[in-house]
């Protein structure tokens, strides 16, 4: 919709950027690298995050046109492109989270806005406000059971599912992009807490953290 101020928040030059876990890693010094670790944790930082709000039908048309992907229409689902690098996540009947490689988000926003024309919708860039953790390993599911209320049994949580739910005393979008990994979309200011929680819950299994 017109009369909205688009703004590319990513600098053109190359100023140093700090992910939400920068302070956490700095404070921790040496990152855990346990032998026979049951879980592996990695931060996927500096991705492009957009929140789309609007009617499903019109947004679906736009993202098909611009991204070549369908908008997940069913609640609590996730679609990914073939590379797995671009995803759209259902958040509510009129709200979706699009995650793309860092740097693509502003161009994507502009193209979506063009495609949406005069419809009522909103697109918000939240790339600085959240980050993604991936959790892998044979004990990843048990660590999640200690952390979230949602049923993470493979029957209840197949690949392609994603939900907003409680994570310890924070909230995350928890999703399963593929067989091997879980993703947690975490708010920036809670990233340190979620990270510390995950490592504490994984203590009995051993953990490896990759940057």
């Amino acid at each position, binding site marked *: 919709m017109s009369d909205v101020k688009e703004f590319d928040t990513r600098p053109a030059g190359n100023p140093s950027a700090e992910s939400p876990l920068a302070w956490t890693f700095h404070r921790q010094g040496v990152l855990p690298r346990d032998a026979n670790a049951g879980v592996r944790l990695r931060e996927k930082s500096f991705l492009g995050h957009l929140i789309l709000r609007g009617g499903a039908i019109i947004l679906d048309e736009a993202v098909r046109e611009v991204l070549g992907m369908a908008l997940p229409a069913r609640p609590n689902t996730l679609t990914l492109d073939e590379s797995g690098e671009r995803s759209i996540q259902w958040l509510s009947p009129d709200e979706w989270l699009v995650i793309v490689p860092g740097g693509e988000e502003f161009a994507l926003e502009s193209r979506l806005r063009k495609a949406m024309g005069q419809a*009522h919708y909103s697109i918000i860039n939240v790339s600085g406000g959240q980050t993604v953790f991936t959790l892998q390993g044979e004990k990843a599911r048990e660590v999640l059971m*200690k952390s979230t209320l949602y049923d993470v049994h493979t029957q209840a949580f197949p690949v392609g599912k994603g939900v907003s739910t409680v994570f310890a005393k924070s909230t995350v979008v928890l999703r399963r992009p593929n067989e091997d990994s879980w993703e947690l979309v975490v708010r920036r200011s809670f990233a340190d*807490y979620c990270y510390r929680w995950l490592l504490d819950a994984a203590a009995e299994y051993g953990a490896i953290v990759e940057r």
Partner: protein
Amino acid sequence: MTQVNRLKQGGRIDRSRPLKFVFNGQQYAGYGGDTLASALLANGVDIVNRSFKYSRPRGIVAAGAEEPNAVVQLGATEAAQVPNVRATQQALYQGLTARSTNGWPNVQRDLMGMVGKLSGTFMPPGFYYKTFMAPASLWMTYEKYIRKSAGLGRSPAEPDPDSYEHINQHCDVLIIGAGPAGLTAAVTAARNGARVIFCDEQEEMGGSLLDSRELIDDMPAAQWVDRILDELSSLSNVTLLPRTTANGYHDHNFVTLHERRTEHLGDSAPTGGRRQARARLHRVRASQVVLAAGAHERPLVYANNDVPGNLLAGAVSTYIRRYGVMPGQKLVLSVTNDHAYRTALDWQEAGCEVVAIADARANPKGELVEKAQSLGIRIIAQSAVIEAKGSNRVSAACVAKIDADSFSVVGRVEELACDTIASSGGYSPVIHLSSHTGTRPLWRDDILGFVPGEVKGLTATGGVRGVYPLHEVIRDAADAGVRATLAAGVKTHAEATTLPQVAARQDGEACALYQVPHRKPSMRAPKQFVDLQNDVTAAGIELATREGFESIEHIKRYTAMGFGTDQGKLGNINGMAIAARCLKRTIPEVGTTVFRPNYTPVTFGAIAGRHCRDLFDPERYTALHQWHVEQGAEFEDVGQWKRPWYFPRTVNGKKETMHEAVSRECLAVREHIGILDASTLGKIDIQGPDAREFLGRVYTNKWAKLDVGRVRYGLMCKDDGMLMDDGTTSCLGENHFLMTTTTGGAAGVMEWMELWHQTEWPELDVYFTSVTDHWATMTVTGPDARKLLAEITDIDLDKDQFKFMDWREGTVAGVPARVFRISFTGELSYEINVQANYAMHVWKTLFEHGEKYELTPYGTETMHVLRAEKGLIIVGQDTDGSVTPEDLGMQWAIGYDKPFTWIGKRALSRPDTRRADRKQFVGLKPKDAKVVLEEGAQIVLDPNQSIPMAMVGHVTSSYYSPTLGHGFALAVVKGGHQRMGETVYLPMVDGTVYEAEIVSPVFVDPKGERQHV
């Protein structure tokens, strides 16, 4: 020490694993597989405790969760102390150290016992209420001694070295209890494909089958248990949880299971290797619950039934068959039913003497009775043990013929020498969980017990619903397993698996007997204990009913029956039966007791889980947190955020006080330039053609004409007219706004706007999205702000191009930024918003360029002083939920003539909000320039009035102003707006009375020129 009572063979203990342990300072030996209780019995320890009220010696009575006496203090070190551990549920481990919780100087020779004998006479139930009233002044002294004698174990004095955790579980069928019913239900549900969680409180699964004499599929029952457990553990759809007690049943089939992970291994979780939690609290959401918790045996209530050597019949069998322990040599058994006869058989088979079985039934018959007869055991019909003899151990049992109907002894009393009396008055189904959500249990005369009422999603099976014969239990449980699986929606053929074969046993009918009559009336007979842990006697219950306590809840509370750590598992039904007898009612007429969680006590640690210490509550950090830490900032907790409070410098090795640091920071802003991390402010991006209309409805002021590029301050009220939040909102585009909220109000405001949009005004086209975390916000403020910013921005900062309450976009330090010219200090200010990932770069660049201007970081304290000097409010500090915008004198921010009746407007015309003497927001200038008034100080007009004084307001904010060189305050005062220049008084706790003048709340730059430069 030898294990004098240990049988040469038999039991499920591991004789290849000898263990040493210490009880009351004495070393003993036991085996792997023992409980502390079985090991104590094996070592011939009769007295394990003293009772808390009468100090009577007490021994082990039961073998499980129902044990009232053997409650001990566990732990070899201070930090590992655990109070009130039931010895019957504590696995023995190497080095276990325990002691009795009562008894002085020790349980064997207890001096309090003398007092106990006296108090037995002078301490009827309710005696506290009847005495210690005079003189009133001595009550607190009396109470100190009352308290000293109460309590069981003691709290550790050091923090717990262990950790605990929660785990969230979901399943189709949760099966509670791994006796015959649970095993059958579990294997049935599992074979039908259900996701099954199967838990049992004991160290080993199998329940009553572990000490059963019966055969299943032609093999000893315990062997069948192993076979079923092997099968279950091989199935991927089954989670087996031994050592796991279902302790709470909550709404909609939410069940908490407490898994003891390391308590059988040692005082604390094993060290070395990876850290394990001591206990795990499973939070289970089950589609269906199968309750297979079995039944507790009920003891009979007879005189001196608390002397060590009085046990439950079933417990005796358990100790013999499961633990290879003889609790004594000569047994008298007092029963009301056939099942208990097995104890006599077990006893005799173990090679000891059964003196007699007193059976309350006139004509006992049944397979087990016949078996006992055939073994030559003496059976005395229509009789019971009416009194135990002995002081520290049973020495004899008085058996007599009784008439239950007339509640009297009708024959000669025979004294039988023995060292053990085992009784069985029938069985009480373990209905606790089924009544946790308020469902009343139902009394059944045929089984003489309460069974679960109907609970949605819960199926009771086996003993817990009064089905006792093993062959019937198995049939019932297989059926329950199928029904639960189907009810959970599992797609299955739902075939009951082949039932295991169990011979049907012919049992005679049981009879009802609770309190055994004595030759003397209850009030005069030796004590007949109902609740052993709380020293509640039959006479006590009789007295309660005599005094008018007629409901079971009254009786329980007056006598304390059932309030112990065993929650009356043994005593409640007997107590109700006694009350029923006294009141001439039936048991169900006396009432049922509704059990509450927990089934057995659970540590606070396990319930708290991982949410403690560093993880008690999230600490939210801004993108600049590391810088603040490295600068040595002191932090203030604002909601969950950690905000820099002030930045003390160390000058000549001396760290500044807060006062010094804040004065320096304040002056830096007023004279040069300061910088604040304001990232915690809530930020909401608002888009849509109706955004402007929406703002007009939720804010008190007007939004219709705010131009793109402009910013406006707004107040938000609830519909009761009271201020709720404030902040600035910027017009980014005609249909696009960025709202800021207070740090603490961010989430609430977001939900508030969604509430109104979704419920009242869905026709407005507008969307809200939180961008609080996306933007980092840095405020540069002070006379040099423009100069500094100009060095690193491409934005035109010309004062006529970029005016106060304008915003512009461009780059700052090469990073795209929105810059807002708003001021919370009264100085020339720019609030820079950049994407949080680049915040540190921008912040550091500002400092690189700011050094020459003495750019000074400041924290929340300085922010508060500076804004207060300008009379700017902080919602929640200067307001408290009872303050309207008019009270604040902010009529300029109220759109009285807006077409839509915005939220809060109507309430402003109610009689109370129209009052002239409402408390209104003003400034206070202390008469003594050196004084900084106390925040929260109360204001009076006449300091000489007597107490209670008429208070007219209070100080909301108060600081020393380094700019003004004196203290100043903000306050609310009744009718304050009309009282400018008047003197008010502030009487303090220490007797000092301060004087202050009511002034305008704007102390610095009243014309507001500095922010416009």
